[in-house]
Every structure is written in C-alpha cells, then in structure tokens.
C-alpha cells in the first residue's frame, strides 16, 4: 500500500458538487503535478461533510485544516503554502476554525464538536467509491462477525436490545420488525431498503448513500442473514444520480470481492441485491406503495394488515427499513447493543441525522444523540438565525410534521416528545423559521406539497387535502372567515383518522400545529385581513411615507407596471393600489426607506 504524508479530503456530496468541487479536484491534481507532490499528497473525493452552507469544503490531514467556500483560484495557494511549505492558509479556513488567532481542527469546530456520528461516521472521511477504504474503517467486519459467530436469532436479539427504531419516520422498533419477518412463514423472503427520501429539504439518506454506500450493502446482507432472505432491493429515487451511481459501484465491488453473491465468507450464506429506481413520487416512500412500485405497479399504498413482514414484495415476507436505520446496524453489531442503548433517551436510542435548513446560519447535515434539545441543534450547532432576526418556529418531520414554537425549544429531541408537541421525527428534516415567515403561508406550502403528492387513491386524502388547501388559499388572500378555522380542524381530524396511509394520516399536521401555536396569525388574516409577517401578497400594501419621500422618482422608474404617480422634485409619489402587483421593486429601490410594506 502506498503511503502519503498528507491527505486532502474534498467533499463530493451533492451540495459541494453543485458548487464546483469537481473543478477544485481537477485544479488540485494539476497543482500537485506541477509541484511534483503526487506521490506525497493524496486527494480523496469523499461524501458529504454536512456543513453544506460552507461548501465546497476541503479538509487536509494530518492537521485537520478545514477550508470552506474554496474557489478554484484558492487551490494554488493551498497547494503552495500548505501542501508544499506546511503553512496553513488561515484566511481560507472556515470562519469558526480560527478563534482568537488559534487554528482549530475540523473536529474542534463548534458545528462538529457537539455531533456524534454513527450513521454518518464515514461520510466525509472515506472515498465512497473505494471498497478498500470502507474495509479499512472496519467495513464488512460486522457482516463477518454475524456470519461466523452469530445465529440469526442472536442478530435480531442484538438489534432488539439496542433499542433501534425506524429512522424513516414511524419510529417502529426495528428489532421487532426483523423478528416478525424472521418468523413469517415463506420459502422466499426479501429485505428492502427505502431510499425514497422525499421530504422537502431533507438529504440525510442521500448523504449516507453518497458518502458511505457500502454500509447499506453490509447492513442489508446482515438483515438478510437475520430474517432468512437471500435477495435485497434498494428503492432509490432517480433524482439522486450520484447516490445511485455510488451504490451501484458499491454493489458491483462487493460482488467482485465475494461480499455479495453465493457462499459469502465461505459460510454457505447467499445474498445479492439490486437497485430499483423511483420516479419521484413522494408517496412511494410509504412502505406499501414502495412495494407496489418495486413490483412495477402504480405507486399506491395497500391496506395494512397484511404488513410487509407477512406479505411484502410479491406477497413474500419482506423486511423494509430506511437508509439511516440500516446505516446504524453494522456499528450496533460491532460495538454491541449496550453501547447503542447507552446513547439517547429512555425510549429513543442512538443518534439521529437532521437536515438543517431554512433561516439558520449553518445549513447542512447534523447527527446528534437523541435527547439533544432543539435549542442546542438550532443555536449551538446550527449557529442561530441569520441577520439577528427572531426565531419563530422550527418545522420537523417534513410535510407530515408540525411547527414547534420558541416556548418548546428546550424539549429534548426524541420520537415521543416531538409527537407530543404535534410534530414528529419524520425522516429528519428540520426547517427553521424566523419572524419573517408567515405561519399560514408555511402551512399552505406544506399542504400544497401533500396535495401535489397525494396518490389519489383514498377519498379523505385526495379530496380533503385539496379542500384544506383551498381554504388556506382563501385565508392568505384575505377571503377567509372564522368558521374556516373550525372547518380546517374538523376536516383535519377526518383526514387523519380515515386516510389509508401515513401520507394522509399526517398531512394535516402542519395546519393543526400552526393553528394550535399560531392561531393569532390565522385570526389576523381572517379578521383584520392582515398578514403580520408581511408575506401574503394579497394582504400586502406598499405605501410611500410622505414625510420620508424625497421626490426622487426612482421608485416610479423601477415599477414594472407604472403604478407610481408623482412629479420628480415637486410631488410626493403615490402608489396606485388597484394596479400594484406587489412585487416589492419600489421598496428595494428607494434609497431613503420611504416605502413601507404592511
């Protein structure tokens, strides 16, 4: 094996790929060649580092120097100064990596310090396209242990005792699911992996697949051994091309190395797997719709029971877990159930990955022990709200979740606490909202998503969510009535209790939680015809403040519909409300802040 004195890790996740990491890698290669460093310094394209906001990211080892927002032109300096002369280029480091002139390594940066990486342990560490690197980080050791030292029931027992719960949203105890599938009668069984991550803004599973695809291959083989399946399917959305490619490479490499296929490790255990591409329907993340889709049918849920553990893919017993759930499995096997059960809260064990987004400084991916409070995630790891704005709410669980207000920020994150607050864990989306967000508009946004993504099978979801959206539309347009709020509540109840699948059963949550915590905002829209956050276009007015107007006429010039009248230098300008399209161009253009929105 070749030895290098320095390793340069370049993030190759989706975020950094779109911000140009490929060019940086090319430039690095060119520079290393120029300085004849190719044999001393190794460049590795890794999976996601998590701090997408700071991308493209480069971390160099052994120092752990954390360069952020690297541009192509910076590569020359990094190569000449750091890689050649050994002097870290301080001004290119991530902002929190230099504190009082002292350089902090990547692990000491506040964003990473508080995280505990189990599912993401290899993301941003290894080259996801290299089987050797995965093996070097204990890869396939758990599979080896399981196949040579453990009976299938022992494996299930470990998963049960670890307390692992499904990371896809439901939070069902994984060990029980494995046990049900193992005990189900059937000559053929399957294991399947749900990689149809669809919540807006969520990219946890994507990052695992892009950064550490072998962990899924290994975990599914372990699951196959435990439940008695010899075939696995990964259902992954086609919109994740990098994840699909890397997983495909991982499966092929594993097959070539004898880690998939017949007689794995000479133990007589056979297991192979295939990728099934989803076409981007959110509902296909629902397990029975996913199974239909794998079978080549329309992605519509089936009634449960029978559960997939009894009748799954082609009516055979099927174990279906989500990507992040599987990503925990090899570590649980290697470190033991007690280790995993020692992390987290009483009923929610281990860690959880969240995709932090919205009005937050450190947009990105974080993995925290269960029981960490919302406040710690948003302020300590997430770096708080940008531009000094006030926090208003955090939305967890995507379109199935709810909005949690500031009063509950000290809540430790676990499955049950989030449900008690009217939200849910979901797959791990966490969207932060500040004072500029209108909660009615937020509820409307999520409903718009569910209406679009409802499969159309059952009546309450198909017809009900549409009517809820229409009511919300009317409220944001100032045409709502107080009785609409009661109607929203009663309709929500019907949709939740009578819908066929999880999509419908949770679709009203964003509305119910905002109605519960932010009813005053709804009432302001309905009674006063005002949007307190100034978001809902129909309820907005742009007005010139006469005392501040300097009669410069810039606003009138910028107005795309010529609805601002006045005479330059002589008359105060006035906006004709009936023609105004509320684009806000005048507000932005006015140099004297003489235009107000409200």
């Amino acid at each position, binding site marked *: 094996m070749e030895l290098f004195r320095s390793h340069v890790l370049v993030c190759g996740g989706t975020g950094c790929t779109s911000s140009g990491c490929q060019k940086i890698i090319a430039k690095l290669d060119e520079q290393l060649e120029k300085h004849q460093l190719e044999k001393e310094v190794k460049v590795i394209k890794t999976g996601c580092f998590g701090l997408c906001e700071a991308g493209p990211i480069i971390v160099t080892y052994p120092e752990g120097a954390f360069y952020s927002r690297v541009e192509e032109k910076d590569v020359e300096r990094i190569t000449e100064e750091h890689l050649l002369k050994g002097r870290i280029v301080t001004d290119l480091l991530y902002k929190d990596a230099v504190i009082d002139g002292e350089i902090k390594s990547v692990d000491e940066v506040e964003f990473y310090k508080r995280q505990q990486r189990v599912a993401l342990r290899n993301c941003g560490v290894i080259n996801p396209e290299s089987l050797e690197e995965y093996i070097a980080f204990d890869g396939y050791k758990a599979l080896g242990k399981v196949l040579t030292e453990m009976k299938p029931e022992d494996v299930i027992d470990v998963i049960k005792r670890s307390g692992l719960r499904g990371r896809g949203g439901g939070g069902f105890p994984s060990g029980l699911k494995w046990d049900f599938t193992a005990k189900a009668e059937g000559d053929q069984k399957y294991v399947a992996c749900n990689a149809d991550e669809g919540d807006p803004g969520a990219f946890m599973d994507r990052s695992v697949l892009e950064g550490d695809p072998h962990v899924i291959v290994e975990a599914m083989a372990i699951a196959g051994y435990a439940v008695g399946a010899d075939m696995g399917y990964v259902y992954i959305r086609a919109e994740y091309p990098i994840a699909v490619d890397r997983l495909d490479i991982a499966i092929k490499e594993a097959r070539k190395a004898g880690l998939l296929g017949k007689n794995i490790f000479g133990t007589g255990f056979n297991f192979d797997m295939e990728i099934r591409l989803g076409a981007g329907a959110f509902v296909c993340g629902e397990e029975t719709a996913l199974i239909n889709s794998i079978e080549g049918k329309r992605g519509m849920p089936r*009634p449960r029971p029978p559960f997939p553990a009894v009748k799954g893919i082609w009516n055979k017993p099927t174990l279906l877990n989500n990507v992040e759930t599987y990503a925990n499995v090899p570590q649980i096997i290697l470190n033991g159930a007690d280790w995993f059960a020692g992390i987290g809260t009483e009923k929610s064990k281990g860690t959880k990955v969240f995709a932090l987004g919205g009005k937050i400084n450190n947009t990105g991916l974080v993995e925290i022990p269960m029981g960490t409070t919302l406040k710690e995630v948003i302020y300590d790891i997430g770096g708080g709200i940008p531009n000094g704005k006030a926090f208003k709410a955090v939305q967890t669980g995507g379109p199935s979740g709810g909005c949690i207000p500031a009063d509950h920020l000290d809540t430790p994150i676990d499955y049950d606490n989030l449900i008690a607050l009217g939200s849910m864990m979901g797959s791990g989306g966490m969207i932060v909202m500040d004072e500029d967000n209108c909660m009615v508009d937020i509820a409307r946004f999520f409903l718009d998503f569910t209406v679009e993504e409802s499969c159309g*099978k059952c*009546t309450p979801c198909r017809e*009900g969510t549409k*009517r809820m959206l229409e009511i919300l539309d009317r409220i944001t347009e100032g045409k709502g009535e107080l009785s609409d709020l009661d109607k929203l509540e009663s309709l929500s109840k019907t949709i939740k209790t009578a819908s*066929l699948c999880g999509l419908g*059963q949770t679709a009203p949550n964003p509305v119910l939680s905002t109605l519960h915590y932010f009813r005053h905002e709804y009432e302001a829209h309905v009674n006063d015809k005002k949007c307190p956050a100034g978001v809902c276009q129909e309820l907005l007015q742009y007005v010139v403040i006469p005392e501040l107007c300097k009669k410069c006429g810039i606003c009138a010039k910028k107005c795309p519909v010529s609805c601002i009248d006045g005479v330059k230098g002589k008359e105060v300008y006035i906006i004709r409300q009936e023609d105004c399209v509320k684009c806000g161009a005048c507000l932005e253009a006015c140099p004297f802040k003489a235009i107000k929105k409200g």
Partner: protein
Amino acid sequence: MINLKINGFEVQVEEGTTILQAASKVGVKIPTFCHDPRLVPHGTCRICVVEVEGGRNLPTACTTPVYEGMNIQTESKEVVQTRREILDLVLANHPLDCLTCEKSGRCTLQDLCYQYDIKETTYVGERKDFEVDESNPFYYNDQNKCILCGKCVYVCSQLQGTEAIGFAERGFPTHIATPFNQGLEQSTCVSCGNCVSVCPVGALMPKSKEKFRYWETKTVRTTCSYCGVGCQMDLVVKDDKVVGVDPAMGASNEGLLCVKGKFAYNFVNHPSRLTTPLVRKDGKLVETSWDEAYEVIANKINETKETVGADAIAAFSSARALTEDNYLMQKLMRAVVGTNNIDHCARL
C-alpha cells in the same frame, strides 16, 4: 374461532374474517362504495370506517381482520361524523344532477347521502371537468361523476382479465383512463360491461334506448340465452319490456357477463323477432303451430333420406341453445338421421 363484539352483539367468527364479514353475520350493515367480495380488498373509499375500542384511527371494515376481544362500534358519533365528512368531500366533486341522472334510484352515493342526511356539500372549490367518453358503442364513461372507488379498474384486471382501464395522474386530478387517454374505443376494452355493472354511481352507464327510473322496473332472474355457459342474470323490465340487464351471482358466472349478455338484449322486444314457427306455403312464409312445424321437418327428413340418402341432410345448431340441447341435436343427426353433417355456429 374468534369472539368479538359488534355494536354490543357477541359474534363468533373464523380467523381471517374481516369486520365487514363479521358484521353481516349479525345483520349489521356497514355502508361501502369500493367493496366487492370478489376482489382483493383495497380500502379505497374509506366510507366503511368503524370505531374499534383502543384503536388509534378508524379502520376500514372491509380490510381489517378481526381479533379476539375486539369491540367494534359501526355507527358511533365519530364514525357517523367521519362518514358525513367523506360524503361531503365526495359531493364537493360530484354533480348534483340526480333529477336527470339515469343512476338515480340505485346510486350508492344518493342512498348514503340520504342515510346520513347530506343535502349538499359545504365546500366550494375546484371540480372535475372531463369530457364524457362516448366512444364505446355500449356505455358512457363520465369521469365527472366518478368517485374513484376503483371497482371498475379491479373488476377489469382481476376478474375480467382485460386491463383496459387504470388510474391516471395522481392526487386531485386522478381519474380512470385508458392507456394514454386514448378513449375506450382505442383501448383493449371488450365491452363486457362488468365495470358498468359494479359502478356505484352514474360514471359508467349503459347507452340505454329507453328512459326509465329504477323504481318503475322489476327484475326477472333468467339464464342468458347466448351460449351454453348458463350465466345467471336479472332482466330489468319496465312495462313488460326489457330495458337493461344486470349480472347475477350464478354459479357459472359469479356476477360477470359478456358483451352479449350485458348489452345485446334488444332482440327480446324487437318487432322482427320470430315468436312462432314459420312454414313456406305457396312460396310464402306463414305462421304455424309447433306440431305442424315438427311434422313438416320429420316428413322432409324421411323423404330426403329415402330418395337421396342421409348425407343429403345437414343440421346447424345454435350456441344460444344449451350444451345439453346441442348434444341431443348431434345425437339426433348421427343416431337417428344417420349422417355426420352436423355443425354449430360457435365453431365459425
């Protein structure tokens, strides 16, 4: 055996029984749109929701198997409220044209709105706007009336095996369509009409030449006369005239019919239909009695056999006769007349 309670009644049923089946055993009727005992339960319409003690949501009676000690309420306040809400939602996207709708009188939506006292919808908003597909010669497909129970799709795929129709688009715009929305005429539809027979509303309706209301009709159970299968069917009769046909649950057809049985009934009341035998007298066909007709046939057969030989005689029997009658016909030709000249229209 499993013991449970439905509306306070103790019931004992076999394992694997659904709530709906168990309820019918004690005479408790639970409303359904999408249920059909011949289909794999699909739980689409949600109108059959019931309350199960200790349950989180309201499960559908048609898909949920019973378990020991289950305590079910089928018309509790919450159940009724939920059914009313579902009906309200369905009506919000369904024309209220019962006054002229052909289905009126046997429309499940109409019946349930009556039962749960829903006069009109409380919602205003977007409605379906589809063109009626009239391309099939025997029935209309009016998607504006469709409540998307899915029965037509599943009957076509699971029972008829044709798979001419399916669900198109998703969410609110979901509708029943042929591949690429090319219309029924361009599809693989064989016009069996089994979808029409199961439609609970007026979305799939026969192109009837008669105007009638169901309450003006009576039904007459009969055996289809088109072939030897012996499909059971109910003639819908108004003023002694057949105005429609419904399949019945006969042993040989289990509620299915083919295009002939379902739609080709107009011959029954056709003015040109032969109702008595005819014999040719002086070059003209005239009505006669069965006795005379048989005598003419017997005489001619005997005469031909003697003068020309048995092979100058041939018989052509009909698929509309029973299998047994066809058997007798060939037996008559071979054993009595003495010729193998016997054939049958179904062979052509």
